[in-house]
């Protein structure tokens, strides 16, 4: 190969791989939409913060499912642990400062992720699905048995938290809650983004693509998955804590199967392994749920079922996959 060709290839290759890490203009879109929503729907901000919380929850799932390829139906466990961490701290110990609450929630959920991951991540597929699912059930039952502490199925109602950063008090219109949730989501997105474009994140993709080969090139696969699972659990814990902060109550329903399944559906709708699929999936799912359920709950359930079927049959890569494919087709004709 001629020297000039080599240089050209090298330059192209560098640019290509750097492009993974470089910010694209489209990445600003979710944040612009989120900020615009604040001004356009001032009376729907409470709902809006629920969407942002679920986007963060779906993001946490994307790390393990979308990148590392771990299929789990028990992510609500970490969401719930996060929610109960700040709930119990506030209700029982009067620890109401929200940001340290988030850190405590991340720590507890991350710890639970690491602990359970040591055992669970030795399994894959159906076994893992059932194990994660039952772990969540057990946690829920645990919360029920110790109802003197957790409040049982009534949960912890009427929590009050200190103002965010000691300044921004929660208001009736949910303005503070919305902006607070948006800020936390943004910080977590930046973190997750750094992780997935890092060599560590690429190695997770390697595990998803071919676990056997990763073993053979010297990757400590179990350890890698454990780290990813722990980070993901911590992020899910932050989402759960945000949920408690923005709603001012927690009940054991955070551990419901529907919570684990719902976040999975959101991520699949939006597109796995793309980070922003979590955002758009949560938006589409929650908005549809909100508008269809007005007619009747059955209408919503049939609607989401149909949507899922269409997605997995015709758009395996979700909404973002469709957008990417359309973008490629548009650019295909041009330079």
């Amino acid at each position: 190969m001629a020297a000039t060709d080599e240089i050209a290839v090298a330059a192209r290759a560098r640019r290509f791989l750097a492009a993974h890490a470089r910010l694209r203009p489209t990445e600003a879109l979710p944040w612009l939409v989120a900020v615009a929503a604040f001004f356009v729907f001032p009376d729907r901000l409470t709902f809006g913060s629920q969407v942002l919380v679920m986007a963060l929850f779906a993001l946490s799932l994307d790390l393990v499912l979308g990148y590392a390829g771990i299929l789990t139906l028990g992510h609500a466990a970490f969401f719930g642990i996060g929610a109960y961490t700040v709930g119990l701290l506030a209700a029982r110990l009067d620890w109401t400062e929200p940001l340290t609450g988030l850190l405590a929630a991340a720590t507890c959920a991350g710890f639970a992720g690491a602990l359970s991951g040591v055992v669970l991540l030795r399994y894959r597929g159906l076994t893992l699905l059932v194990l994660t699912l039952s772990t969540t059930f057990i946690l829920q039952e645990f919360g029920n048995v110790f109802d003197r502490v957790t409040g049982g199925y009534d949960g912890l109602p009427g929590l009050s938290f200190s103002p965010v950063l000691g300044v921004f008090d929660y208001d009736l219109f949910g303005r503070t809650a919305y902006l607070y949730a948006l800020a936390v989501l943004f910080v977590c997105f930046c973190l997750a983004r750094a992780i997935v474009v890092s060599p560590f994140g690429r190695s997770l993709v390697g595990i998803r693509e071919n676990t056997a080969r990763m073993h053979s090139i010297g990757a400590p696969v179990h350890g890698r998955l454990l780290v990813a699972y722990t980070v993901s659990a911590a992020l899910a814990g932050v989402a759960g804590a945000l949920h408690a902060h923005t709603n001012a109550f927690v009940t054991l329903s955070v551990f419901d199967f529907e919570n684990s399944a719902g976040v999975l559906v959101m991520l699949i709708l939006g597109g796995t392994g793309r980070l922003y699929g979590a955002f758009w999936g949560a938006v589409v799912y929650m908005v549809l749920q909100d508008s269809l359920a007005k007619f009747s709950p059955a209408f919503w359930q049939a609607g989401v079922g149909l949507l899922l079927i269409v997605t997995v049959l015709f758009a395996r890569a979700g909404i973002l996959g469709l957008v990417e494919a359309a973008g490629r087709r548009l650019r295909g004709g041009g330079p």
Partner: protein
Amino acid sequence: MIASMTAPALEIRGLARNFGALAVARHIDLVLERGARHALIGPNGAGKTTLVNLITGVLKPSAGRVLLDGDDVTGLPQAARARRGIARTFQINQLFRGLTVLENVCLAVAERTGAARRMFPSVRRDAAMIDEALAQLDGLRLAGDALVPVRELPYGRQRLVEIALALAQRPRVLLLDEPAAGVPSAESHLILDVVASLDPDIAVLIIEHDMDVVFRFARRISVLVAGAVMTEGTPEEIRADPRVRAVYLGESGDRHG
């Protein structure tokens, strides 16, 4: 450490493994000196791939030891052995099919250098990794395909990526499991040229059915039959051995037929 001065790169002692009642490896001994060029031949189902799996740690032996540079690695998992310098290629491609050729090699480079533990991007260090991967690809005349997803490559070039991944590990022991398998004979020389020009310091064990290739490449040959080493020797000795002719060379003509 002192052992590594004198010990062979790879030594296998009495390695055995059963699948149920089937003994696929029976008390196998094998020594690869530094820079060895060793071929492992034997009929289909003789247990050649199984032996590679035992050496690399994919399978646990029911008896016997594997020593790398004189150190017993029998108890170590696959990845730990890989990091100590064993690399292998697969008889059937095991690649990251959805990723580009360059990303494939980068994964192997990142594992070897320890970059894969890094959880944040770094322009400078990532560039060093990419440059190393590109240099690796260039050495195999694959640089032009660097940005092509592996699944879009013709099979013959995918076989080269198999080797590129193994070489990116900078191994001291390289196990090649039928590197040209599945490649049209018109293209197989591209792969065999790469094999012939491997770093002379690497100890290479090659499994290959083409006797011309084996006799040209290997300085020692082991013949595996039904899980046991029937004989081992120089190419001349193997060629002259009537038992080898009977069990293997005699049937090599219609082996694929």
